[in-house]
């Protein structure tokens, strides 16, 4: 750690991991409800579990992004953070607001929560992923503004690198597009149209800039490859991201009341959306192959390479699978979508945050470069257990989705929704088992922070580099 103020990232990362655990627990509850319909009913109905699952995901990823920025920006700009105190204050505000919101979902009926938080004044609740009470949304905006101010001031007074610039563009975009969550017209088509300006332009747009900049940062640090080379890659990757991804929004505009021409725009541009992810994979492996040193934090390198591969598979390949309009006509809103969502979010965003944590946590804990060998071995086990089980979760959901599409949509004698669901229950059971393995992996991940703490740092024998 080069600057004292980078340490504010630590509470952000700890909170992120804690919320991640909550997300997975609620994922397992939902997975069980898919096959055991009245599990926890009516105390925790499926929709409540799902809100908690997806909102925790968003919040922990945001904690991760903010932590990553607080660590990365001072180091890149070569000066202390503008205001570590503001960063800590915002941490507590965000954590308390997040916790209260989740408790609200769990403790009172959603309609009651809407009433208590005066949703009437500015109704924004009850839309997928944007279920937060309006007051929470306003809180998110305030935290985001304070965060951007802090990061922006740090950038202004320091060295301006491409990595930090791209990250700040991504984070600014994140805040700007979130503002569309306040637009909720009575017209359902318009509501849906602009809802995607938050959701799609986040995950298939500006978030990829944040992902790219974190990956570039970790690769610069762990491979020692010339910054010029890495920054050129970063520019071209994010260029392709936005060139394909912005118009790629059209793949959500096939069947929601918007004009037919979106089927062309959406299909053509989103078919190209895997390109930046593929470039990212090539980039990561290339940089590691050309490394000038063998960094002792092998776990961080593993996470970085894993992110590149899994983001390509989850976002790129599984996205392409159902993005062409004639295919999407049959698969829209089935388990295929769920399969893609799981691997894409894990591969791109969960893993990049874990990459950054893996790289920076040892340094914030006073290590020179890396954790002990023992700790890294446990962390790598966690990596493989989580990643492989996520591959299986995705495969089982894909199997379920193909059969669902077949029986309910792609036939002359369509089954009704529940009849089709019952026929594919075996896939849901297997998904749940894979989910349990994921939880074991996550548990090991947490264990990795506590083992081998008093052991010496891992070292790399230099002969390997020759």
């Amino acid at each position, binding site marked *: 750690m080069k600057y004292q103020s980078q340490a504010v990232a630590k509470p952000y990362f700890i909170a992120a991991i804690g919320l991640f655990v909550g997300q997975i627990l609620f994922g397992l509850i939902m997975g069980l409800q898919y096959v055991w319909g009245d599990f926890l009913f009516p105390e925790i109905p499926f929709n409540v579990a799902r809100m908690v699952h997806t909102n925790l995901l968003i919040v922990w990823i945001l904690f991760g992004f903010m932590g990553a920025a607080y660590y990365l920006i001072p180091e890149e700009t070569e000066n202390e953070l503008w205001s570590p105190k503001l960063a800590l204050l915002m941490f507590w505000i965000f954590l308390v607001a997040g916790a209260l919101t989740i408790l609200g979902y769990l403790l009172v009926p959603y309609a009651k929560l*809407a009433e208590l938080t005066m949703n009437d004044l500015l109704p924004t609740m*009850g839309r997928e992923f944007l*279920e937060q009470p309006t007051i929470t949304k306003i809180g998110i905006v305030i935290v985001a503004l304070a965060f951007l101010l802090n990061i922006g001031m740090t950038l202004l007074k320091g060295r301006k690198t491409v990595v930090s610039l791209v990250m700040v563009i991504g984070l600014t975009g994140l805040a700007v597009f979130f503002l569309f969550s306040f637009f909720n017209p009575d017209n359902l088509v318009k509501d849906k149209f602009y809802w995607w300006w938050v959701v799609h332009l986040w995950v298939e747009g500006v978030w990829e800039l944040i992902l790219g900049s974190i990956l570039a940062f970790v690769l610069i640090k762990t491979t020692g490859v010339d910054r010029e080379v890495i920054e050129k890659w970063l520019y071209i990757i994010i260029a392709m991201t936005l060139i394909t991804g912005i*118009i790629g929004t059209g793949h959500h505009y096939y069947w929601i*009341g918007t004009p037919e021409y979106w089927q062309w725009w959406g299909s053509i541009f989103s078919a190209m959306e895997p390109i930046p992810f593929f470039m990212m994979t090539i980039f990561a492996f290339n940089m590691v192959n050309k490394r000038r040193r063998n960094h002792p934090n092998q776990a961080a390198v593993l996470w970085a390479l894993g992110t590149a591969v899994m983001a390509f598979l989850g976002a790129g390949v599984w996205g392409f699978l159902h993005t062409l309009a004639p295919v999407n006509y049959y698969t829209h809103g089935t388990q295929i979508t769920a399969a893609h969502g799981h691997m894409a979010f894990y591969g791109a965003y969960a893993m990049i945050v874990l990459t950054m944590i893996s790289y920076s946590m040892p340094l914030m804990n006073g290590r020179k470069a890396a954790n002990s060998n023992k700790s890294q071995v446990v962390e790598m086990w966690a990596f493989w257990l989580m990643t492989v089980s996520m591959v299986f979760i995705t495969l089982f959901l894909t199997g379920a989705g193909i059969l669902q599409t077949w029986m309910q949509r792609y036939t002359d004698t369509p089954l009704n929704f529940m009849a089709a669901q019952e026929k594919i229950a075996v896939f849901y059971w297997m998904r749940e088992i894979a989910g349990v393995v994921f939880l074991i992996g996550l548990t090991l991940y947490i264990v990795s922070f506590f083992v081998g703490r008093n052991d010496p740092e891992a070292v790399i024998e230099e002969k390997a580099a020759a």
Partner: protein
Amino acid sequence: MSETFTKSMARNIFYGGSLFFFLLFLALTFDTESALPDRDNRQAITEKVALGKKVWEEHDCIGCHTLLGEGAYFAPELGNVYKRFGNSTEAIVGFIKSRPENGIPGRRSMPQFNLSDEELEAVAEFLKYASEINTNNWPPNIQG
């Protein structure tokens, strides 16, 4: 990447490309807005339908169901439920009203939301309005 392709070229592609495609996106959005009145069934949006949308939102229906294919995949598509239920708002009202308080043993069940008659009618009207949006013939069949 080769030396002839420089970082500043990459940077220019990023800024130029993003700006161009964002402007194109805005142009398409503008065109979509002008095409929507013929497609989005806006003439059917009454006060009741607007209330229905609010009831829909404040009970987080999207947390289990899909609506025009978007939402959760735990319960049936509702964009065409009005048609599936024989073009009847009463059937929708009857279904929501009759959900058992403690669910159905072993099976997925919709919660009993204890909606008022006004809210029930409103949400049914909202679903009727949704079913008449021009969705380019989606879903492929009545099962949604």
